[in-house]
């Protein structure tokens, strides 16, 4: 049983070491979607007076950290084909838009810089952009894109 567990573990290590660039981009997009949706919810709650300002600041800070992490993952992953390079550029662009929107929201809540209500459309746009990337068929999935 111990030997079987060890073999399984070794296999898993080898498998996880071979994660494709596309899989990394997909994971980063999912992470970005989760972060931007978190930020949208926190901003909605702040605008509706349903949350404390320190809690909203913390939530937006955490969302921003997730976006930075996702951006780093994508930026550090090499593309080996032209299609992968194009996907990487699109993902980085969408994450950058999201990062800017969340950063503006946090500034508005924490320091009163700009209008929080004015950030909402930017958050919506960033969410739509990431969502579109998430729903796009990946190469080899049989989709027409």
């Amino acid at each position, binding site marked *: *049983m111990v030997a079987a*567990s060890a073999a*399984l*573990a070794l296999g*898993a*290590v080898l*498998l*996880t070491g071979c994660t494709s660039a596309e899989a990394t981009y997909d*994971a980063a997009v*999912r*992470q970005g*979607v*989760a972060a931007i*949706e*978190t930020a*949208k*919810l*926190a901003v909605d*709650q702040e605008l*509706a*007076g*349903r*949350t*404390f*300002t*320190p*809690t909203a*600041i*913390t*939530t937006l*800070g*955490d969302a921003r*950290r*997730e976006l930075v992490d996702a951006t780093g993952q994508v930026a550090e992953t090499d593309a080996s084909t032209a299609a992968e390079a194009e996907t990487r550029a699109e993902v980085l662009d969408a994450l950058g838009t999201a990062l800017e929107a969340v950063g503006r929201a946090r500034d508005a809540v*924490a320091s009163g810089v700009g209008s929080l209500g004015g950030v909402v459309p930017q958050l919506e746009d960033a969410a739509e952009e990431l969502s579109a990337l*998430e729903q796009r068929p990946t190469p080899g999935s049989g989709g027409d894109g």
Partner: protein
Amino acid sequence: MKRLFAVALGVLTAIGGFVDIGDLVTNAVVGSRFGLGLAWVVLVGVVGICVYAQMAGRVAAVSGRATFEIIRERLGPRAGLANLAASFLINLLTVTAEIGGVALALQLATSVDPGWWIPVAAFGVWIVIWRAKFELLENVTGMLGLALIVFAVALFMLSPDWGQLAGQALQPGPPAEEPVATYWFYAVALFGAAMTPYEVFFFSSGAIEERWTVEDLAKSRLNVLVGFPLGGLLSIAIAGCAAVVLLPRAIDVTSLSQVVLPVAEAGGKVALAFVIVGILAATFGAALETTLSSGYTLAQYFGWSWGKFRRPARAARFHLAMIIGILIAVGILATGVDPILVTEYSVVFSAVALPLTYLPILIIANDREYMGDHVNGRAMNVVGQVYLVIILAAALTAIPLLIVTGAGA
């Protein structure tokens, strides 16, 4: 109120076991990814911990000695050392996570970086353990931790589709987009969290601190039957809130701030205030519980004088061990490691160590030399043995699942 305080030990133990920082996040992660598809694991865990905590409490009440002390005497120093090594290391990881959890809870209330709160939290844990009486410690943290019932209230206020939630709970299994291995990884993690070894060590040592005797067996049962099911209920409520608010928005939970979003959505600032107080009390209570458990296990193995019913000068090594444990935890957190990551790993490793904890308890609960007429009945032994098989399966699959799924990523 007196009756409520009578079950404070069970409530505090269960809050530490079921809604500490790791559980808060893990339950929300599970809810945001699987809905209530893993609620059955919580139920299995609640029954398991009730069975074994009841045994550990009975051993303490009948023999007047804590479980760990008897394990060493009954099974010898080698078996006791294996038990000590596994449980102590997991305890240390959990102390680290809980002190970090207190800092994260304070960040929610203040937005001040948790790095600034870590020394404050560590000092708070030390001073309470050093100065406060055991009864005060368990009553205050246990009762304030009850504020987490706001998760159950929030779930009702969110007016969910109960049929859909019931469907998720009654037809367990991973959603189409989640790998089967990930589903089982979280099943093992939830089970390991529900049956964390320190719960039984803390519960039985707490029984000695409260000077339970055979006459307190009913109190022991009441503590188990109120505390742990309550902890399980809170676990399911946290997952339910995440299933209703976060799952439809594709929010995978990675931070404590996301865990409270559904509560604020349901009940606004009042509910949010309750949940922040509850999280603070639960993580602080769990930090006390795990720090004390570290001291208990070491002192009981090495035969040192121990217990909060003694003045610190009369249990110097017990207190010194806890101070060193707190300092190590602060040192680990000072590296910048994510406390939530620490606790998620500690939960998985605790699943690995479960057989080392629960087999000796089953053996001792059947030993007439210690238990007299209060040994396990046949039904209790059958249930205990069935759980040992489940525990063994969880222990053997925990690490492979951790690796295969990339820690549930």
